[in-house]
């Protein structure tokens, strides 16, 4: 007998007491999304609370360019399907490298490690927790793109921001890869004292576009 059959058999024996007619989903869900007065303002506040830098703007291209200049980025990587207008104001001194694994021009991990930063869009922003969610669709690139470079500039439109986790879960497709990001990488492993900056990008800028 395979271990699969052994384990499933053990489970069925163990559950001999459970009524087969028990309804499948009995858990009471006496909770709701937290209500937030001004969702976008709260989102900005919570993102900043976890030590990301927040920029609220009506002019994404100018803000992105200013962030890259401030952070002294000379080699920038982006996904091939990032909207070109987001980089319209980026200075000519910045080398923009396009990652496009679908066309066989994907960067290796070591190549990515030579990049100063990455600019992406996002799928959802969550106000209550200060989270940006990437589902690695249009403009967001594959997962490694926003992981290896030390700087991540993430552009979120105000209409993408929801109040709380359940609202985000309802919008997301669990068959896509996802990365939920709440602030720059951090650890509390030494004396449970939180310090920012371990393996993921140590600097996170969230550009919130009205």
């Amino acid at each position: 007998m395979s271990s699969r059959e052994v384990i499933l058999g053990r489970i069925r024996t163990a559950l001999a007491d459970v009524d087969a007619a028990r309804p499948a989903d009995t858990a009471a869900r006496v909770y709701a999304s937290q209500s937030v007065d001004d969702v976008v303002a709260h989102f900005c506040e919570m993102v900043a609370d976890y030590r990301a830098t927040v920029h609220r703007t009506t002019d994404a291209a100018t803000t992105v360019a200013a962030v890259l200049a401030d952070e002294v980025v000379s080699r920038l990587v982006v996904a091939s399907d990032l909207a070109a207008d987001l980089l319209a104001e980026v200075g000519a001194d910045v080398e923009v490298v396009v990652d496009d694994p679908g066309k066989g021009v994907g960067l290796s991990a070591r190549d990515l490690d030579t990049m100063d930063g990455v600019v992406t869009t996002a799928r959802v922003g969550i106000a209550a927790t200060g989270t940006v969610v990437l589902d690695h669709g249009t403009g967001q690139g594959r997962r490694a793109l926003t992981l290896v470079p030390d700087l991540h500039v993430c552009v979120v439109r105000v209409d993408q921001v929801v109040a709380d986790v359940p609202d985000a879960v309802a919008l997301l497709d669990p068959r896509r890869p996802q990365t939920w990001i709440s602030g720059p990488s951090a650890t509390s492993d030494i004396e449970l004292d939180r310090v920012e900056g371990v393996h993921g990008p140590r600097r996170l800028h969230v550009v919130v576009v009205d």
Partner: protein
Amino acid sequence: MTASGRHPGTIGAGEGALHHPDVDFPHAAATALADSQLRANLGHATATIRDKRAAVVAEHPHWHGLRAAGAGIKDDVLARLDVHLEELERQLQAGGATVHWAADATEANTIITELVRATGATEVVKVKSMTTQEVGLNEALAAAGIAAWETDLAELIVQLGDDAPSHILVPAIHRNRAEVRQVFLDHMASAGIAAPADLSDDPAELAAAARTHLRDKFLSAKVAVSGANFAVAETGTLAVVESEGNGRMCLTLPDTLISLVGIEKVVPTWRDLEVFLQTLPRSSTGERMNPYTSFWNGVHPGDGPQDVHVVLLDNGRTDVLADTVARQTLRCIRCSACLNVCPVYERTGGHAYGSVYPGPIGAVLTPQLRGIDTPLDKSLPFASSLCGACEEACPVAIEIPDLLVHLRTKIADEAPRYDLQKAAFKAMKAVLGDPDRLARAERGTAVARRVLSRSGRVAGLPVLPSWTTTRDVPDLPERSFRAWWAARADVDGVDGDAGPCAPGEGS
């Protein structure tokens, strides 16, 4: 099945030197209590995390509802675990993952070792995972000539220092910053990139040293091993919740990803995660949300590992499931909130529990997974004052004190007939169970009071050394409540069973 009626296998070699089945909890705890540095480290760390957790739980207006929903969802899962696992398997396979089933630790280690060998790799990077510790995967891989690099900062500290984990979330909680610095200076060089010679004990600098040390390993890794916090049956989605980005590195960069997942990690639907993604971070690191959560669903073309395996692990979990009272232990999402609030854990640390699962949840989970055979495992359910702080903090409402009592009952039921403690409790019951005998014993107490002590206080009573080492025996009362009541009734000439109380007695 073994002679004791349990499934073979259970907890594997992972605990190494940590697991001394003959040293029971009270003795291990005594050693820990004598280590003042350890107590200072633990006291500081647990106080910090307790306050953070309390703040983010208190600010959530629907916490009680989330907690009840989390418990309910897990109970639903357990009630039809076979159905959910079969669905999970189908969905994982549909997503391009290969699914393996491991009945015990040995089988899990064999499967994973063979998978790594098949890639030709001689080293793997690891995401922090309790299940891989539980089965002793690193030791098994080492025996096969494969180096397993722990990449979580605390796991790295433990691994470099040849130490044992003492906490579910923060395995190096027993180490302070100065000790961590020394471990890095002494041991990083032999494992790869050395720590900078001028390394200070600033946590940010220590984290930076870990980043540098592990960077090359991440960029060159061919195989990663992870666990999973959740596995969604309806979609085959796996989740890893983390902070540092080491998880993302392991889940994203290598060609091959092997995830060892306990069978209780399954949840029925994607929507169920809306509950746990709120309760887990708040309970574990005391944050509204942890920095990174990754989801994947088998193989994603052009993104991440293209060779994806999931090993579903039993290793004693079906034994827990078979106990209708203790089944709820399997709700556990390994947040470690119960450790952080436990007054016993705070003072002894994790090593005294002799298991990768320490603290209150360990005291109920370990004996169930391992069986209640050794002096250590027999002592674990008693390693609690039953204060209830653990249950109150548990985000899936596991009734830990009640389960501890349940396990104590199992131990008492199986004790030999002439067990000394059993005899003592029988004798006590004979007195307590009969009002007349109790009254006689109370009169004896009054006599003892006169005999034993001039002041009524007994300083060093030889029959109770474990009490009197640090505590005085209380003043024995002049007479019992029962005697007082009877005397008062006599004065008033009323029936001893009822009636008004005469003033002037008592205080």
